[in-house]
């Protein structure tokens, strides 16, 4: 028998047997990095931690914080009795059902479209990509408004149309399944964007290796492609679950009509009751925050167990999966999704906006007898409130999206690419707003900027700050999943060839991240344009945004005006998105 080769006692780096513990490196090499991290903590602290802290404080005290009056003397747990009241528990149950149901619907729609557009040979993939993205430009509360117009049990246009055609009314959107469906289809673009990015950045070798090792194309998908997309799919699932659970306007518009409370509407009602019960609302919100933090931590654990550097430094050419007979049905399914998310709702809004009276007795009758005109549109267009709120919306959204993308990139770079101590905490802080319902964050921000002696309250600056805080998680996740997929060698190599670290990031990492960063910017822009809940407590008459004008009109029962403004609002969002995409595409050619 031969002697076995002397087994290397260990692979990987060698462990020290000695007890001596060495610091990471001599202190004089570090201060600049540490100062940078400290500055980031400072920014995120004021943006995110302080509002949250104020909410926490008010959950444990008897009076909400006001300037010059933070009451830390009388700590109490009384507010938490509300958390276990029957009303709150019922609302929590509804929230859970809505969150899970809507996530499943959104993942199915978004994941399906992402796969078909990124990796299949289906025809009309550009159209399907557009279809996947387009509901993003339709704010979910406009979708809810439109579906309310379409699917009301009596006055819903679909039911009226059915009556016109001699059928029984068949549809009621004001139900739990209705709420789930509306949320699901309008949150699907998040799943679509995240999963699409992951599918299109994959290293084809990994799939080809599986094919070579005997997998059928279907097995490759199941065993390699989808597992590699797991961080994106999981990330999307968590994101959508949390966003739908904390969505306020859709639940308010569709749920409260039939007496369905979810946690956010319950919190809203607590705050709006007279006298305001802000402290109890804060307590309910904190219970929700804890649950979501647990979910996020679990996701992080799962993702951090494996390395997902799927893009190698070797360039990539991805293969397309042959769908076979399913090629055409795939497009039909996509088109159906397009109709229910976009075509029908927009038609309903336009129809109601153009109808000459608020009361619709027959859809076919109105179309035939010419009861449609542009007066309502003209009214909205000549309204100065709409003019100023349009300008406000554009300024706030574009600024918040640009700053948000830059901040998210910096933070996720520090977390994922450097070894600076304390970096992981930045990631957690960035994710906090995801766990804080927008309505509560809005309240926290209000308290914060009333307390901080900087005169931004009542200006557009406070709106921008609010959006930066609210959208940090989405920006951070988008930037991180992109950075994790670019091999660090590519940047190190630029440094070795004479570029400073900053220049290497600018010349190599940022251009390679152009697609993820453009989608992140687009995501933030759309989120800002669509945001209604966060500014709900921050606006003054001078700083009203379009979304607030629409919501106000709806709440006051002025449906025609609300519908007309919504149509304009959608056109504006489409336009912005179009410009943003063109800009992103042309800056690429300049590189």
């Amino acid at each position, binding site marked *: *028998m*031969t*002697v076995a*080769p*002397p087994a*290397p*006692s*260990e*692979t*990987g*780096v*060698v*462990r*020290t047997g000695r007890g001596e*513990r*060495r*610091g*990471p*490196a*001599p202190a*004089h*090499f570090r201060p600049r990095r540490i100062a940078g991290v400290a500055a980031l903590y400072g920014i995120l602290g004021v943006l995110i931690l302080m509002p949250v802290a104020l909410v926490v404080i008010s959950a444990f005290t008897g009076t909400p914080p006001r300037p010059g009056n933070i009451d830390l003397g009388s700590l109490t747990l009384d507010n938490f009795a509300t958390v276990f009241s029957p009303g709150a528990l019922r609302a929590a149950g509804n929230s859970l059902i809505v969150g899970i149901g809507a996530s499943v619907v959104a993942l199915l729609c978004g994941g399906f479209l992402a796969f078909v557009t990124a990796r299949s040979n289906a025809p009309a993939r550009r159209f399907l990509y557009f279809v996947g993205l387009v509901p993003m430009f339709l704010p979910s509360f406009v979708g809810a408004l439109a579906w309310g117009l379409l699917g009301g049990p009596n006055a819903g246009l679909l039911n009226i149309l059915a009556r016109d055609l001699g059928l029984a009314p068949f549809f009621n959107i004001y139900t739990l399944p209705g709420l789930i469906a509306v949320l699901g289809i309008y949150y699907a673009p998040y799943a679509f964007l995240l999963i699409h990015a992951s599918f299109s950045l994959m290293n084809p070798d990994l799939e080809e290796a599986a094919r070579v090792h005997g997998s059928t194309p279907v097995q490759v998908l199941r065993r390699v492609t989808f597992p590699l997309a797991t961080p994106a799919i999981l990330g999307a699932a968590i994101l959508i679950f949390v966003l739908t659970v904390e969505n306020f306007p859709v639940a308010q518009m569709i749920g409260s009509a039939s007496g369905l409370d979810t946690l956010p509407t319950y919190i809203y009602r607590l705050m709006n009751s007279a006298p305001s019960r802000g402290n109890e609302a804060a307590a309910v919100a904190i219970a929700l925050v804890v649950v979501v933090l647990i979910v996020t931590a679990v996701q992080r654990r799962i993702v951090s167990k494996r390395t997902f550097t799927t893009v*190698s*430094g*070797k*360039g*990539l*050419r991805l293969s397309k999966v042959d769908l076979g007979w399913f090629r055409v049905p795939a497009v039909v399914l996509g088109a159906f999704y397009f109709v229910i998310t976009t075509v029908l709702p927009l038609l309903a809004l336009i129809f109601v906006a153009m109808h000459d009276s608020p009361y619709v007795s027959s859809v076919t009758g109105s179309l035939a007898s010419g009861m449609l005109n542009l007066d309502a549109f003209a009214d909205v267009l000549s309204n100065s409130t709409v003019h100023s709120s349009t300008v406000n919306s554009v300024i706030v959204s574009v600024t918040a999206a640009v700053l948000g993308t830059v901040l998210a990139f910096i933070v996720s770079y520090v977390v994922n690419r450097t070894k600076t101590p304390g970096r992981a905490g930045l990631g957690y802080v960035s994710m906090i707003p995801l766990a804080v319902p927008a309505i509560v964050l809005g309240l926290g921000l209000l308290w914060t900027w009333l307390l901080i002696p900087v005169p931004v309250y009542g200006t557009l600056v406070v709106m921008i700050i609010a959006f930066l805080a609210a959208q940090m998680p989405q920006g951070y996740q988008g930037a991180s999943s992109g950075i994790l997929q670019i*091999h660090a*060698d*590519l940047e*190190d*190599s*630029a*440094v*070795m*060839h*004479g*570029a*400073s*670290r900053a*220049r*290497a990031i600018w*010349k*190599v990492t940022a*251009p*390679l991240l*152009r697609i993820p960063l453009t989608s992140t910017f687009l995501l933030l822009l759309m989120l800002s344009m669509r945001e209604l809940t966060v500014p709900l407590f921050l606006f003054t008459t001078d700083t009203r945004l379009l979304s607030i004008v629409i919501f106000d009109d709806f709440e006051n029962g002025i449906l025609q005006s609300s519908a007309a403004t919504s149509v304009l609002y959608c056109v504006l969002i489409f336009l912005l998105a179009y410009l943003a995409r063109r800009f992103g595409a042309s800056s690429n050619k300049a*590189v």
Partner: protein
Amino acid sequence: MRISIENLTLSYGDSVAVRDLSLEIEQGEALVLLGQSGCGKTSTMRCVAGLETPDRGRITVGGDVLFDSDRGINRASHKRNIGMVFQSYAIWPHMTVFENVAFPLKMKRVSRADTARRVAETLELVGLDGFADRGASMLSGGQMQRVALARSLVMQPSVMLLDEPLSNLDARLRHRLRGDLRDLQHRLGLTSVYVTHDQEEALALADHIAMMQFGRIVQVGRPDEIYGRPVSASIADFLGVANILPVDPVDASTVQLAGSDVRLEVSPYQRTEELRACVRAEDILFGDAVASDGNNIIEGTIITREFLGATATFRIAVSDDVDLSVMGTKQQAMRCREGDRVRIQLPLDAVQVLPLEVAAADAEVTA
């Protein structure tokens, strides 16, 4: 330029990747850091590149101190003017070949005309003329390797670092590029440091080889020295010595194979705890080549034979527990059968009795 590394230590948290390592590399010399994965060779290279910050030590290139923990010097990577070819090549997929190679010059603000000229010259040097406008993601592995090389050469680096430069290529390409690399390195008189785990590559590329194990350099020497005189059995094993046999010392020039009564005459050796007799398969004489009498002649039984074309490998059992790997000729392979009894001889100078492991190398490289 001359590279000097003194007392380099690098750790990640509690684990030490490089441990008190010292090394000198002369101007124009090619040094290969050879070792198994995880032995600290890439970490050492990344310290020289400035991509890792060591805990302690000093790194000097030419007269320039790049890193000195005592004096708080840590030159940024991009100011070190060190060329580096990454294992993954790290060719930027969003740029053309020209843009990739021109990058270092652009960073140095070289004029447009000079850049064009120098890039063209360098591409020609590595045999890529005519590829300048090709998109970088459309290249084969060998071409990427050449682009990576050109990108580093064009900056006229003081030192070249190459991290497993050939491991991603197929065998024939590897042979050719190995020759090209050696030729280029000689022609340009470039001080180069290679990292590899492939002994053949190391032997072919190096002026000197530094064997690394567990974050330390355990042996330094010319390729023929390392190949012919490994200082420990584990190094010998890594270098492809087929027979590493546990032995017990008998006297100053005799050992006994553990688990048998076979005794071998050997050159004088140092007595330590665990001893191994290391014998290359090609150094064992077999069949007709064995003299009628002499030292270390043993009888054994053929267990298996592998026909390899020009040669053949036999496993021969010399006792119940000990068998040897022996290289023979193709004629022998045709004549012999499994189960045949044969005589083999282990010439005195073919057997080295070595300790299983050694601590750090006592000799530092001197070129």
